[in-house]
């Protein structure tokens, strides 16, 4: 854990003094705004019908495929530079010769991108606040929805961090991360593709789409959290082993 706090603060500083985080934030909010706006417009056209869910549940739940697609764009871009850039520029040499452990470095970098990810979602709370005027809001389902998003992000960003440690090129790291995260996403689609049976059950359990669907309705299934957590912990553990292995390169 040694060096964790210093690495975390350096990562946050580097993320936010360079254009990357700001560009991603703008693109992200633009996409989220568009998606949310479309959903709200769609719901206003259904105004007279008795619908079970509101636009907020739809945004985080049934229509979450749009939201998850934007994550496939934003998460790999957030993590691509974590290790690839350090190795390309050679700063990894100064980092690894300081009295710090690989675990400290990996956690510092990971939590910095995770914090940034959470910061990108923060403005979307305004959507809910705005809609509050039009009807009652169930803050519990909003809370569980954000928990779901945090879980997905935690898994995606850990995968991306691992991919960044595998290449000196940010572009390769980006592509690898998109590939891995899209793969995870596609697994869930299997739920709608396969006949009922084992494969479909597995896909349903691994589905990030279903996770969001459940969470948007306020169902917090511990298995979903454990699944996200396992991906994150495994990826970060492998990353720390990769960092350690550079000593023997």
């Amino acid at each position, binding site marked *: 854990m040694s060096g964790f706090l210093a690495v975390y603060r350096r990562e946050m500083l580097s993320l936010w*003094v*360079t254009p990357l985080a700001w560009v991603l934030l703008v693109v992200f909010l633009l996409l989220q705004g568009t998606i949310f706006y479309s959903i709200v417009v769609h719901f206003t056209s259904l105004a007279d019908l008795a619908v079970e869910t509101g636009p907020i549940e739809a945004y985080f739940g049934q229509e979450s495929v749009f939201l998850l697609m934007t994550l496939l764009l934003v998460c790999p871009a957030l993590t691509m530079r974590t290790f690839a850039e350090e190795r390309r520029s050679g700063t990894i040499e*100064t980092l690894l010769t300081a009295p710090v452990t690989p675990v400290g470095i990996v956690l510092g970098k990971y939590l910095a991108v995770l914090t940034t990810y959470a910061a990108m979602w923060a403005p979307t709370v305004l959507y809910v606040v705005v809609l509050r005027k039009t009807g009652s809001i169930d803050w519990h389902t909003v809370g569980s929805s954000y928990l779901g998003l945090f879980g997905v992000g935690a898994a995606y960003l850990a995968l991306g961090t691992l991919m960044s440690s595998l290449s000196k090129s940010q572009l390769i790291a980006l592509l690898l991360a998109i590939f891995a995260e899209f793969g995870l996403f596609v697994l869930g689609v299997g739920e709608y593709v396969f006949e009922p049976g084992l494969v479909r059950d597995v896909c349903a359990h691994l589905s990030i789409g279903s996770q969001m669907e459940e969470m948007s309705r306020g169902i917090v299934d511990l298995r979903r959290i454990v699944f996200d957590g396992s991906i994150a912990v495994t990826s970060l553990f492998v990353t720390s082993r990769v960092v350690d292995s550079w000593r023997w390169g």
Partner: protein
Amino acid sequence: MIEARHVTKDYGSVVAVRDVSFDVAKGEIVGFLGPNGAGKTTTLRMLAGFLGATSGSVKIHGHDIATESLEARAKLGYMPEAAPLYPELRVREYLAFRAALKRVPGRERKAAVARSLELAAVKDVAETPIGQLSKGYRQRVALADALVSNPPLLILDEPTAGLDPNQIVEVRKLVRELGQSHTILLSTHILPEVEAVCQRALVIAGGRLVAEGTIAELQARKHGRETRVTVRGDGEKLANALRELAGVKAVRATEVAGAPDIAELVLEVLPDADAEVTLERAVAALVAAGGGVRQVSPARASLEAVFAELTQAEEPKAGDA
């Protein structure tokens, strides 16, 4: 301060460093000398704990770099080749980050950063983003980084590479000053640098340590038994007079351009003869033979010549190492 024992690094079939052993004592400034590609950087990286040795051991301040890595790394300030830095950070931010990383306690961090800014003469660019700095400033920021936790040992990989002559002089001056309070190991392929700052040098070639000693010792290795005599008279005739003397191994005569009656003789004494006595006899013999002795000086071999001799053979003979 550094104890390296039989350190070897191989990359599959390529052996980058083989069986290198040496010590660096507290308070020394040691030059690590060798041509490009000789294994300098690989060796320094192993000392700094960035690379693991295939075999052998390294102890820094009594801590093994492999088994007590954090303790060992806390005792050294390492400046990698080409001074890699984060271009987006300001100099002060970068040094504050490095100080925190090197476990300088929070209360002392500000003072530690101020001190290293001062020492490395980068105070005037403290608020400038590193990406906007010139090569010379970056090099000194990297040096400030190595100094920030005030470690007892500094390992500097080519600290003057890419600097202009004025900056080189400044960095050397700084290294000499730091040498009063730190132990320093610095690598270079520039010989005057070793002469200018180091008390002792390690010479590496082809991944092996081929020589070790003070500058004077290294110079004496091959050419220590030579004397240069400037005489007026027939050079060849006088040289022949010397060749008859006991204890003389060889004499080379060269004419001095622009002075036809002046010759320069290089007298080499046999290894087992007394150099002083032989020289005394030689001068007497020159005078007896009608030569006018103008100047007698020890032929101080240039470090370049020693370096070339030491490093030319990729596979040095056993007696050479």
